[in-house]
């Protein structure tokens, strides 16, 4: 009996922590890559002035996942890099493509600063997580004789991100990796509200980090 209760509790915890997510990753390579142990990568969220842009929490997750675990890469943080290169990587002044990067390198001190920081690659992150649908019905009541929640509500989220990788040594675009993940979260009311939360943003972050490491460390052309 005790074992059954424990197993049930464990299953509930697993269900709450996981949720149902499906993800897909795609990669296109346009140049040879490879990193020495001194080379560093900087991950930058592409800013925009509309209401949607890459969440800071996503680039933080990506930094953590790329800089730790198996084959961690040497990273320079976004704020450190932007301070080093100020005013050239602010939202309204950052190069939009490799041609603009080439022009930027002609500015006094820019190339020297990049070389001193040993940043070999920039990964520009575009994308966001949006809620694409929601439905169901959940009602909670509270009275003098007790209370509870009954029903089910759900919401679907779509996380879509792309990393564009620039090689600062060769001044080329090395390629791009895209990660898409979708997931449906549920809130079931069985007296107590039980959440089954899917985290497509987290799944996209982990998938993109794994692929980014492989992309940069594998010396392919």
């Amino acid at each position, binding site marked *: 009996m005790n074992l059954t209760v424990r197993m049930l509790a464990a299953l509930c915890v697993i269900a709450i922590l996981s949720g149902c997510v499906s993800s897909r990753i795609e990669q296109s390579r346009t140049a040879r890559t490879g990193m020495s142990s001194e080379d560093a990568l900087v991950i930058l969220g592409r800013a925009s002035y509309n209401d949607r842009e890459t969440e800071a929490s996503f680039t933080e997750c990506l930094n953590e996942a790329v800089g730790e675990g198996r084959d961690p890469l040497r990273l320079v943080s976004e704020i450190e890099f932007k*301070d080093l290169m100020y005013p050239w990587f602010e939202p309204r002044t950052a190069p939009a493509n490799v041609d603009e990067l080439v022009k930027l390198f002609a500015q006094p001190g820019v190339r020297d600063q990049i070389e001193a920081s040993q940043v070999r690659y920039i990964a520009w992150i575009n994308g966001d997580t949006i809620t694409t649908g929601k439905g169901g019905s959940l009602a909670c009541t509270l009275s003098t004789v007790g209370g509870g929640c009954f029903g089910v509500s759900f919401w679907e989220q779509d996380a879509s991100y792309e990393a564009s990788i620039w090689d600062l040594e060769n001044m080329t675009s090395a390629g791009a990796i895209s990660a898409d993940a979708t997931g449906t979260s549920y809130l079931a009311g069985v007296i107590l509200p039980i959440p089954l939360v899917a985290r497509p943003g987290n799944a996209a972050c982990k998938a993109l980090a794994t692929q980014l490491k492989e992309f940069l460390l594998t010396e392919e052309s």
Partner: protein
Amino acid sequence: MRGVNLKSLVGVSVLLVLVSCGHNIEVEGTIPTPRIAALPVNVGIYYSEEFRSFEHEEVIEDIGSWKISLGEQNFVFFQRLMDSMFEETQDVPEPPLRPEQLVGLDGVVVPEIVKYGFLTPSISGLNFYSASIHYRVTLFDSEGEKVHEWTIVGYGKSETGLFNRDSALKEATVMAIRDGGARIAIDIPRAADVLSWVADARGGAS
């Protein structure tokens, strides 16, 4: 005794409401050194007391009172910006300067904050705080004549969470200072008026 307890409870409640409705934000952030070529001129910079200690106070219905102190961060940021933009800088009193005060200077620069504004998610309907700073930068030549006046708007925004409203506005303000500074650092040295002023200051050499 019961009356005293009730009064205390009401007093604490009122205090809590007042505290929860008031936002006192001290803007702090990193101070980068701009990677730009300094113009080969010696300029005086006038920072007014208002610029050095700029504060914005606003009461917004439903979301309370706001006091944003950005002066110190902005002042230190501009000191470093001006030191990078010009070969030599020195603080000067408020223009117009007397001829003897202009000796050795190629010009005088006066940066000012004209207006600061911010939007909260409850006003904009978007999931972030945004801040804007309208700067005015005036350049005078070595004779005290106005060369040009620029109006530059710095803009910043930051995502908000449930418990980080004040830090989101702080970050948006830091970004607005950086954005305004970036425009000043890049656009002003390229302006035609500035290029001809520098050429004149160097005795006609371009």
